[in-house]
């Protein structure tokens, strides 16, 4: 039992998007779905220009609006504070998409195997991989996790369901940090129990002033940002990643 959260040091982040890629490989998410997304932002006019980077996972709100609207209880908060989706139960109704103020829910529009980048069924390749799609398919994603032993790990399972960041339930149960945290080249991402004063996240929070996104909505996000103030209203995104048609 823990209240796991994430602390993101914006003054370390290089905007490299290794976290996005680590998430994709670990969770096998389909094309265009980024459970972790890094905004690259630009603000001000030449030569007084500012560039900044802002990783955005699911906020894993303590008071999560997506959980409240889910008509089938597919969305719930697990015993470690992660807001997860039971993809066995999800009916793809999009209520969570509408309720979430952070835009972190992704719908599987395509047959997942057709949205996995390459033709993994290529005969010569499949003779080596057994036809796994993607070839690097993570077997842990079919597992059952948490006290309720529900299928809440990974993405790209089924067409027509909503999936999102699970704080890597399959890794956390093995005492590993989420894939994004593990990959970050400059340790800008911290993960751990917010209720434990000795955790990495608590210690980082006590060192630096923090903010959370849209705190005024009382969603009580468990993702904290430190090291920089919030982007100004005139900051705009550069180098956005869009789903490929």
């Amino acid at each position, binding site marked *: 039992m823990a209240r796991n959260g994430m602390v993101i040091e914006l003054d370390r982040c*290089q*905007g490299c998007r290794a976290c996005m890629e680590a998430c994709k490989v670990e969770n096998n998410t389909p094309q265009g779905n980024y459970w972790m997304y890094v905004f690259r932002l630009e603000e001000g006019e*030449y030569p007084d*220009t500012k560039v900044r980077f802002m990783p955005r996972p699911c906020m894993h709100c303590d008071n999560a609006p997506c959980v409240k609207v889910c*008509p089938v209880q597919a969305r719930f908060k697990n015993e470690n504070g992660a807001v997860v989706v039971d993809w066995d139960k999800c009916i793809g109704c999009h209520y969570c998409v509408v309720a979430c103020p952070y835009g972190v829910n992704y719908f599987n529009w395509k047959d997942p195997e057709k949205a996995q*980048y*390459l033709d993994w069924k290529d005969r010569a390749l499949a003779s080596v991989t057994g036809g796994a799609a993607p070839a690097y398919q*993570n077997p842990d994603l079919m597992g059952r996790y948490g006290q309720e032993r529900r299928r809440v790990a990974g993405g790209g399972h089924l067409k027509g369901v909503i999936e999102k960041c699970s704080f890597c339930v399959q890794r956390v149960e093995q005492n590993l940090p989420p894939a994004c945290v593990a990959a970050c080249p400059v*340790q800008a991402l911290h993960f751990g129990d917010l209720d434990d004063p000795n955790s990495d996240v608590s210690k980082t929070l006590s060192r630096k002033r923090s903010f959370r996104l849209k705190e005024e909505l009382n969603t009580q996000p468990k993702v904290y940002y430190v090291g920089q103030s919030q982007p100004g209203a005139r900051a705009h995104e550069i180098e956005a990643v869009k789903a*490929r048609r």
Partner: protein
Amino acid sequence: MRVGRRTFLKSSAAAGGALAGSRLLFGDLGTLEARGPESKLAYTEERLPTTCWLGKQDCGIIARRVDGRVVSLAGNPAHPRNKGTLCPKGVAQISAVYDPNRVKTPLVRTNAKGAPGQWREASWDEALGLVADKIKEIRAKDPTLILWQKGRSKQEAIYDTALVGALGATRVGHGTYCSDAGYRAAEYTIGAHGNGHPDFRHTRYVLSWGWNVTNAGGNKFCWITWNQQLVAARERGLKLVAIDPNLRGAGPFADEWLPIKPGTDLALALALCNAIIAQGTLDREYLVNYTNAPFLVQEDGAFLRAEGREQVWDEITASAKAFDAPGIKPALEGRVNAQGRNVRTAFQVFQEHVAQYTPEWAEPVCGIPAEQIRRVARELGQNALIGSTILLDGVELPYRPVSMMFYHMSQQELGFQASRAMFLVFMLLGASEAVGGLQVDTSWSVHSGFRSMENATVNNPPYSYTLSGSKFFPINSVNPGMIAKVILDPQKYEVNKLPEMAIVHMANVLTSFTDQPTMEEAWKKIPFVAVIDPWLSRTADLVADVVLPAATMEKYEGPIGAGDGYDDATVFRLPIMEPLFQSRGEMDIYLDLTEKAGRLTGSGGFLDRLNTVLSLKDPYKLELGAKPTVRDIFDRWAKSQGLTDGIRFFETNGVWNKGAVSPRKKYGYGQDPPFSGIRQRLYGEGLLRLQKEMQAKGAAQAYWRDYTPLPTWRPPTMWSSPPKYDLTLTSYKKIEFKQSRASQVALLAELAPEQRVAINPATARARGIQDGDTVLVESHNAVTGETRQIRAKAALTQTIRPDVVGMPHHYGGVARHPWTQGQGPTPNTLFFTGEGYVTNTADNTFHVRVRVEKA
């Protein structure tokens, strides 16, 4: 479960309605299908160490393999360079290792060169036989006519030295498109092999001079190592000053930004020297004792010598003495009469030379306010702490915590002299190879180029096709683009023998190198081309006769240095699976190729040379008569190094950690005597000598004019393009891609799907260009009048100077790949090679004047 689902849907009107709507949009839903089978999580899991194949710094990787299938790559915590982390390329390359679009079998061309290839599949035996027969045929005439063109070889001792030596081939690298002008300047000026980086653990003030911090590189390393060190240094209070026409790279890590005009770095460096001399923050002890600054210079520019020794002015006896005479006190400044000649100290010459280059002079040239240049000079002087020392591991060393990071920015027309001038800035402050100061390599050693360049000769024609030793480039980094020019016009360059075959190793000549139309024309003329590549590169597609499918990371390759400058280590690339399809590691390919070409066994063969370059010791030396396996070769290397487990040590542990690098090894000042006894070159006497010899042999002014003993400003050639070419194009890298082996990685291509021309909104507005509009970019060659055009979409950004546009590299390198279709052009189409667009060392510029309009 399925029944439960349907039961629920019937009872829920709202959800049912949503679903009905959704079904209209995208057809059958997985939610209504039977769910997947219950999980079967019993599996066999292994964690295998290996090394990144994409990047340059060879980060340590742990591959997670489940039931024989690799499911992820993560950083190896024991590797000093990446410490358990990976960049986006390192993570994403798993999708490339398994890419079904790799070249699966050896291919032989069935159509004419110059058009997309038509191929027939061949056996390894047949394909290697074709290449080996050509090698034999050409070796019988002149082995140097075999051109071995590498991009990154990943094992220089084995490939560049042993293999190329066994074939007798001509080795050509990609350094003239990378940072070789800086290498030549460092070797000549500082005496070490590299460009420049800060001693991050101890530095306080860093000029990020063209360092694309958040996207790429830096000296020696690929990416992660510097960024980890930078972040730690900033948390200790480091100030970073970005000198770059584009702020995007340094981004939030720039504490101050000097948006310099491209091609004027030499002018800025000279102005910094001027201001530093004016403010008097000179490390006189360093300059007098460890550089040639006190050497006396005659009016003809040569040093005053007596009995072969350079003379200095001894202030004690008021007479000229040999620089290394005991008990003297050499003067740093002054004009004197010695041995009946009017002489000045080299420093005096320099001081008078830079007197013209004031910050006020530099302001309009560089586009940077004089006051800002003075402030940076002042802050450099204050932070240099001249005279201070620091105790490291019991060794007291000079402490000069000011430095710079510079690398690819050396590739501009005046790049050799600009790099030299940048070194001089830090030499004045005594920061060269001091603790906290400017380092050229990760540990100190004197490079052979320090002496060989000073003693270079200008030969008589005919010249080799590399133009080495020629009157054109007596110091020559060997530019593949110049080789292309030579192939198309050998008479002009007084060359009588051209390459008759090329072996392309981990390079994509027709995308990665500049002056694309010239390259294509020239490479079509090379009679036989073999390309070794995991993918059908554009080079392979257009000009290869034979394509040999290389493995990616699934092979043995090494030994590979893994130190981060503070801790030393060695690793190997290890096969985390069998080579996919019919691909093979380069070592396997070369063992078979040299065997078929009769160059494997015997004295001077590949095996004999492997014994030498790998320093194999008895009883682990390779027998010269029998072909070993690749694993066996590396097993012998490990055992020769005293690792009794042999290669198994690496297969088990991944990293051979060798502990901290001693300050005695790391710093030039840590040597006994300091700098191993060399005098760092403020004044380049040999450059002046070469200039005179080039003139005597009739070289055109364009070739000799930058062979000056002190860095001397002149306007870049591109500035004489007509005024309608009113913008300067620069190029850079993106974090997503590395050279020509990443833009086809599906996961990476998704992040950065197509070429974009970065343009300032004010510039765009004046041309009616909006973000996302397709624009025409036309470059102009100020010497030949040639023009080149590309079309790409505009990306408006306030991070770039209004008189500059920028384009990233590495798009479109792989032919016929679903993720490279439509990626758009490479800026290399727009850049030129040849007079006006190469340095005096044959290094290529990545600057050109362009015009941009809405297409």
